């Protein structure tokens, strides 16, 4: 059962429109509709706000501004993660970034609320803000730690002298743009007051953070809040924490004592959630003529909000990747008056591997060496910084298997040498690595006398396949057919997990469920008639009300394996692109990823996550970028017609191959995370293929056609 490619158990609900997302619950009756009004300046303060026209607009029940919003808790910096802290809104007239909520209008219908929002009269005193990353980098500082509580700077050996002595050098700067998570389901909350209690139907990756954050903001006991989120329409980091939509819905629902629904518009998302920092990265590689690295440095500068620091662990990616005696990684932050940065799918790896794996490709060309051979020559035996062993490192195997399946030997060694019709064709590859995180999670499993079992956890299913894999684990351990297992997740009255995020969800929760099943088996087998008696029979005989047990996994800080081993997942990406010889339009032709991440609980859903991740990489290489107007601090291209993500036609043949395995250092099931692995390195494979096709190396992402056009040959007949 575990490891089988079974179809999603929640699939029939999703394909028929029966799966209910945050703002689709009707059990509490007709809600009111809240609409957020955002600031139209980047920095300054409100000098006048007059809501009287809006208040008298038809259907309006309430207009909340900083002048009448309830007092709220302040973010407590001693809470380690941003996402568990209070998120107060409408607390004062200061504007810290463009689009920051300045009012919530609540009305009987969505149209009434939205129309009334534009009737609020506001005047601002605008202050000059800093919005231009390119010109502000000299203002940067070194953060204390970076995301994931990693060190901001690391050093091994003597980078400078190592690099200076190297026979072959690469020293380049790569820049990546602002990007947004943009799950298809906008962030949304339906808040339902029940006396002093509150039910929140919210689109959340982590139920516990949603509950804690609301409780801390509203300053109420978390036990009075029930968070419900059975289906989540994607998250990609942007729903690790809740945002203003949830706080404002909760505040309004309590004040009006009626259900209130607030959904962000797609345009609002560009200022209110899910923003990945822009980066400028310098990568230096020094190697001998044999390709062996003697020095490697990865220095990253990125923007941060001055109010809520966020440092993506972009250079940390390099720490475990290749061997080299002399090493240096660092992060710097440039404060800009923009919304806070947040985790976006594969934080750190997505921009970091794009830079490093581009640089490795440049080194391979400088050495006239096959890029795979170069990587194999630099494969470390132990973690190159800490010296601890790797558990289950299979990078080389991924590269070799991928090369074989992709037909890497057909790669033109000479850039710009392969032409197919109007297309210049090129091949590129890149390596993938991602640390495997482990977090505390609990689950409860109950066996009922009718021969069914129920799994409960506050874990979420954001598309990763939680319902299915947890059912598989429980079915196997309890000896039941899968349709006899019911998985209930996404409620805060279930045992607490770490939710979905950081690729940790499946490994954490399946281990907790496994342990719950083992505990249950132990209890039951103690009263078995004989060894062959089925568990369901024992339940029926001895426990007419059913029997349950809990299972748990501890945080990685408490797991000794995390001190003794470097636990990661691995992969290799191979891309073939075509570049129109006249117009420089760049189109992916085919792509393959090969991945090793311990055991795959369900190859069907795992492959889906990986191809989805790879597509993010294609997008990062070729499409996605949010542009700030440095005069106003606004993201200008703020809709899905201007902020481009790939459509069907951009993704032709694209596949992921899973190298099954078992990482016994990870957990009892041998499972590691895959939600982000597909993103890691995939953009670099595409980028490297563009170079192979054209001989033009673009280091400023995404590679839009105007960056390649000047390097193309003249028009021919």
């Amino acid at each position, binding site marked *: 059962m575990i490891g089988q490619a079974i179809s999603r158990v929640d699939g029939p609900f999703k394909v028929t429109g029966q799966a209910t997302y945050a703002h689709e619950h009707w059990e509490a009756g007709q809600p009111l509709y809240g609409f957020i009004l955002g600031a*139209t300046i980047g920095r300054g303060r409100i000098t006048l706000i007059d809501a009287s026209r809006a208040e008298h607009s*038809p259907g309006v029940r309430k207009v909340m501004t900083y002048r009448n919003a309830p007092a709220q808790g302040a973010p407590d910096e001693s809470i380690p993660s941003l996402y568990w802290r209070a998120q107060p809104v409408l607390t004062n007239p200061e504007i810290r970034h463009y689009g920051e909520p300045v009012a919530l209008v609540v009305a009987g219908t969505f*149209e009434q609320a*939205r*129309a009334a929002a*534009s009737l609020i009269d506001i005047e601002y005193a605008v202050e000059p803000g800093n919005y231009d990353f390119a010109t502000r980098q000299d203002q940067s500082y070194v953060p204390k730690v970076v995301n994931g509580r990693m060190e901001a700077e690391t050093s091994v050996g003597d980078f400078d002298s190592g690099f200076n002595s190297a026979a072959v050098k690469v020293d380049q700067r790569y820049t990546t743009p602002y990007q947004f998570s943009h799950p298809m389901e906008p962030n949304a909350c339906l808040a339902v007051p029940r006396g002093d209690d509150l039910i929140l139907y919210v689109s959340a990756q982590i139920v516990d953070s949603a509950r804690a954050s609301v409780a801390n903001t509203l300053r109420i006991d978390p036990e009075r809040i029930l968070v419900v989120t059975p289906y989540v329409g994607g998250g990609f980091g942007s729903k690790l924490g809740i945002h203003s939509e949830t706080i404002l819905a909760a505040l309004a629902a309590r004040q009006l004592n009626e259900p209130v629904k607030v959904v962000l518009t797609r*345009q609002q998302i560009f200022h209110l959630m899910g923003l990945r920092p822009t980066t400028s990265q310098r990568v230096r590689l020094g190697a001998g003529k044999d390709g062996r690295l003697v020095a490697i440095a990865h220095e990253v500068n990125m923007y941060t909000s001055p109010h809520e620091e966020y440092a993506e662990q972009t250079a940390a990616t390099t720490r475990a990747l290749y061997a080299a005696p002399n090493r240096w990684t660092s992060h710097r932050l440039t404060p800009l008056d923009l919304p806070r940065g947040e985790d976006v799918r594969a934080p750190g790896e997505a921009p970091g591997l794009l830079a490093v794996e581009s640089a490795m490709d440049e080194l391979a060309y400088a050495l006239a060496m096959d890029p795979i051979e170069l990587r194999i020559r630099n494969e470390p035996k132990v973690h190159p910084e800490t010296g601890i062993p790797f558990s289950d490192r299979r990078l080389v195997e991924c590269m070799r298997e991928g090369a074989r399946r992709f037909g890497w030997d057909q790669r033109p060694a000479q850039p710009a040498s392969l032409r197919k019709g*109007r297309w210049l064709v090129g091949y590129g590859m890149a390596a993938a690595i991602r640390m495997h995180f482990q977090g505390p999670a609990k689950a409860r499993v109950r066996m009922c006398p009718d021969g069914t079992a129920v799994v409960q956890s506050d874990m979420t299913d954001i598309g990763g396949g939680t319902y299915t894999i947890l059912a598989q684990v429980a079915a196997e351990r309890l000896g039941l057919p899968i349709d006899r297992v019911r998985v209930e997740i996404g409620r805060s009255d279930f045992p607490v997990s770490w939710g979905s995020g950081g690729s940790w969800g499946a490994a954490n929760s399946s281990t907790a469920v496994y342990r719950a099943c083992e505990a249950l088996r132990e209890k039951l087998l103690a009263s078995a008639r004989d060894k062959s008696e089925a568990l369901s029979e024992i339940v029926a005989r001895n426990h007419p009300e059913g029997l349950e047990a809990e299972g748990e996994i501890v945080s990685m800080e408490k797991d000794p394996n995390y001190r003794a081993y470097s636990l990661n997942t691995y992969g290799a990406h191979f891309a073939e692109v075509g570049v129109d010889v*006249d*117009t*420089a*339009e760049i*189109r992916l032709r085919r792509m393959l990823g090969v991945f090793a991440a311990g055991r795959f609980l369900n190859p069907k859903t795992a492959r889906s996550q990986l191809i989805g991740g790879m597509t993010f990489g294609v997008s990062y290489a070729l*499409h996605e970028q949010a*542009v700030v*107007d440095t*005069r*106003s601090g*606004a993201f*200008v*291209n*703020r*809709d899905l*017609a*201007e902020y*481009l993500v*790939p*459509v*069907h*036609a*951009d993704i032709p043949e694209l596949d992921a191959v899973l190298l099954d395995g078992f990482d016994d250092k990870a957990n009892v099931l041998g499972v590691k995370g895959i939600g982000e692995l597909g993103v890691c390195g995939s953009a670099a494979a595409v980028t490297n293929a563009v170079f192979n096709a054209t001989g033009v190396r673009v280091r400023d992402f995404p590679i*839009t*056609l*105007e960056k390649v*056009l*000047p390097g193309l040959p003249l*028009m*021919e*007949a």
Partner: protein
Amino acid sequence: MRPFIYERATDARAAIAAMSTAGAKFISGGTNLLDLMKLEIEQPTHLVDISRLAFKDIEELPDGGLRIGAQASNSDTAADRRVRTRYPLLSQALVAGASGQLRNKASVGGNLLQRTRCPYFYDTASACNKRNPGSGCSAIGGLNRSHAILGGSDACIATHPSDMAVAMTVLDAQIELLGANQAARRVAIADFYRLPGDTPHIETVLGPNEMITGVVLPPPPPGRQVYRKVRDRASYAFALVSVAAIVATDGGTITSARVGFGGVAPKPWRSVEAEAALMGRPATMATYRDAAEAAMTHAIGRGQNDFKIELAKRTLCRTLAQVAQVG
């Protein structure tokens, strides 16, 4: 979206009469108007629904041309057998635009009148002379990668986003208009759109309560037709540059040429300069290069869109090479 009174017109005369109310606007497919109304860029107080009027047919004309009703959907127009065989360029342009869903709703009349995708036009907090005359142009000195290189002014450099209209421009389409008191007139598409000058908010010569009832296509000119669209995504994206070309050759000499550009100007751009540079010349890359230079003589880049000049030249050359191939 601001409140409005909704009215469904039963016939053209009633629709036009309803337009005499201040703040009235026609709604057809709604795919552009509602997009803009939701953001309060358009704020009609009275909506006259013309989507059910009897202008859906595509009819043969005695001279061998075709008359396309203004209410014909973009899909039906693209799929019409006569359009596909006699005006393949128009089919190609239509199916290169928007998405299957949008084309099913979008009407020919609405497509001609769709407004720019300039992101500052879409942001009511930004200065924009087109949306709010006299407020300034945020695109100049701002994000202008997708903006015009031809025909713009210091007041506005927005592009017209339609693909269909570019094809119709090289087909010398005539736009049929109906005004109050049954006053019907026809305007050549070349004269239908106005350049921004100092009044970028005035985009066409359409009168305040005039309705587009149809588009007349004269018999197709000789030669092969190709519409080529260059865009960032493979589909569902507006043109960075597009080229519509119809070229006929005789013994390797160009005997007739029509050239239009999309994505580069405030209106579908007919390049008489390029056409002149092609006529009577040999169908060779050298000729195409001359035509491209001629077409772009007056092109002005605004920074981020500089690349469009080179891109337009290269796209034109390749398209001409393709059309003249079998021509």
